[in-house]
């Protein structure tokens, strides 16, 4: 059936051809064009840096990963997917990947739980809250070198304060960075201390975004604090939790400084050897830039898969 519409507004004047001077004037006179132009002017510096230092580097790394790349070579030998085949057939790569996954899982879980717990406490306007917010965030401003050196001494088997305290309590000292079973949790513990401040602030912001009337309604309905947490706080905090876990996994999968400084690049044996240490050795000790690029690309793919899994399990139930 044919539809008939009635025009309620008068016809707009005909748009001039865009490739004419009049067309250009018309285009520039439009507020939306002017707004867009201003936006692009502001974005241009970022785009230039992004294209030169990120996009171009990514494309170049992809290209390099298909070559036996010599830094000072005048020609580079194309070897197809050989670097990727070598990587996937290397037992040490799988050891590094497993260690990294365990470290990232422990650290993300620990950081999320600790930052959420502290955010819940600091959300209340108790005496000294401002001090603790600042104090908890303070470790985040330290560099990994400082953190690793300080904790390396604290955890020193023979001269460390922690083992001194354990001995004082009549307990056996722990070989924190020298015991294969303990080293990853130990590095994870250090990383949680170092990095929980930022997610704690994000959690605090997330908690403040939850409408107060929902809590009031819950209290009127007789909900106890545990029920309030499970049925109101946690569901409404899912976007924040998603952000914290996604960025946490991406960051902690790239752990480097802690094992580099604290466990002599992944010891004992390869008990704390991680993917970025593997990449670093390939690129900057063996100078196999093509192979190292294939490691970087493979890591990026793994992180994309992990992120998609997180979106699937946490993100699909997010209420925005």
């Amino acid at each position, binding site marked *: 059936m044919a539809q008939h519409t009635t025009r309620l507004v008068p016809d707009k004047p005909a748009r001039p051809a865009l490739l004419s001077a009049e067309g250009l004037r018309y285009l520039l006179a439009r507020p939306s064009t002017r707004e867009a132009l201003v936006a692009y002017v502001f974005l241009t510096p970022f785009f230039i840096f992004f294209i030169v230092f990120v996009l171009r580097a990514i494309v170049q790394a992809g290209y390099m990963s298909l070559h036996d790349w010599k830094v000072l070579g005048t020609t580079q030998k194309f070897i197809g997917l050989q670097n990727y085949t070598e990587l996937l057939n290397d037992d040490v790569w799988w050891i590094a990947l497993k260690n990294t996954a365990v470290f990232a899982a422990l650290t993300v879980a620990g950081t999320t739980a600790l930052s959420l717990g502290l955010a819940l406490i600091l959300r209340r306007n108790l005496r000294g809250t401002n001090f603790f917010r600042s104090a908890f965030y303070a470790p985040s401003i330290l560099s990994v070198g400082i953190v690793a050196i*300080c904790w390396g001494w604290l955890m020193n088997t023979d001269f460390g304060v922690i083992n001194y305290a354990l001995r004082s309590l009549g307990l056996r000292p722990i070989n924190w960075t020298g015991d294969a079973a303990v080293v990853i949790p130990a590095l994870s513990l250090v990383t949680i201390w170092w990095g929980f401040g930022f997610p704690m602030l994000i959690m605090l912001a997330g908690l403040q975004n939850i409408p107060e009337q929902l809590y009031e309604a819950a209290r009127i309905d007789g909900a106890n604090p545990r029920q309030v947490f499970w049925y109101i706080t946690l569901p409404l905090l899912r976007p924040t939790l998603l952000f914290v876990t996604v960025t946490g996994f991406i960051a902690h999968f790239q752990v480097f400084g802690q094992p580099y400084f604290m466990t002599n690049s992944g010891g004992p044996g390869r*008990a704390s050897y991680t993917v970025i240490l593997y990449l670093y050795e390939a690129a900057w*000790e063996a100078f196999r830039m093509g192979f190292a690029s294939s490691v970087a690309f493979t890591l990026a793919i793994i992180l994309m898969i992990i992120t998609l899994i997180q979106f699937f399990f946490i993100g699909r139930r997010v209420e925005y």
Partner: protein
Amino acid sequence: MAKRTFPMGALFVTVLALAFAFSLSITPLVAQDNPTPTPIVAEAGSGGTQIVFWNGLTGSDGVTLNEMTKKFAEENPGYSVRTESMVWDVLYQKLQAALVAGDAPDVVVMHTDEMPQFVNFGALQPVDFIYGTGPDQIDPADFSPSALESLKMNDQYYGVFLDNHGWGTWVNNALFEAAGLDPSQPPVGFDAFVEMAQKLTLDANGKHPNEEGFDPENIVQYGTTVSWMRVTFLTLLYQNGGRFVNEDGTTGVNSEAGMRALQMMHDLIFKYNVAPKPAGFDNWQSFAAGRIAIIPEGSWFRNFLVLDNPDIEFTVWPMVQLGDQPATWMSAHVFYIPVTTEGEKLAAVQKYIKWISDNSIMWAESGQIPARLSLQAELDPDTYPSNIVFAQAFNEFGRFDEMTPARTELMSALDPELDAVLNGQKSVEEGLNAAAERMNAILARG
């Protein structure tokens, strides 16, 4: 609308927290009594011809070299030297990037071990023109012939020694005397060494490992340590007649000699209880604290004792012989010239290298050994006892690792396996076979 006021309390606590964080960050610096930081960039002289010089001497040795460079500039007013010091890894990384960018230094110091890799990259030029008996040349006869061979590739010399350095043995006199032992009498052979180490090892109850009731979980003083595992292993590999890289291009680490070498180290820890597991154990601080009696360490250990721990009475032995023959691992700091240095700069670099080499007796202060034989003979025995002991040992039985461009990568394959074996994660055979499999794949790749 209520006016928002700035929370002064929050500002105060923020400043307090930042101050706390800052205090943490400077703790390692203030903890040292007399820190002598090596300048990252040191300028010497103001002459028109400037030499840009990179090295990885970031410890007290860098300060010594800068002093020497200053003297060179004073004696040669037409030249100036800009010395840039950075950690070794960074130097190796930056050098290639600088060559690509056309901004390479005029001269660098690296170890002998890195030479094949960088020659293979096409980064270094031959320096045969520096050797000879002419006025601006250095007489090759003034070096140990075997050491000089380590600078040769494709029948050309690629570097000039700044020093020789390597592995030896340091002992704590007080612990020896307390055990009724004479520190001037080094043991010969593995059994004699174990016997001595047992006398020097004590548990919390004052018992030795060969006594009834000894508690291996509660050792307060160790007779010895495996120290830097890689270097002790290579030394023992050579003492047992093995090679790092065989003539057929495969590795010799899992040869019979390699197995014997690592088994010795393993037994010191797990069978005889005279050495600690290496992971988490701080060898240098433990020696300083009187918890280790005999430590295999490098010639560079001198400054840790002489400058940082002057109260410790010590004796130096050549590397103890635990295998069938005397041998000790050695290496060297070497001047190399990048391919981009030419013309007037090349002549200036030659002059600089010759001056440092001629005056390298001053370099003994850094703890290292002057490579020139004529200068080794001039070392004062009261000031440089360790340098003299090490120099003699290197000349008699020092061993450089076999040359291979893949050395760094090979070591990355070997180190974790040694670490795993000596921390009880793998058997000697498992560890060395795993290392060899990986190393042979690297060597086969070329």
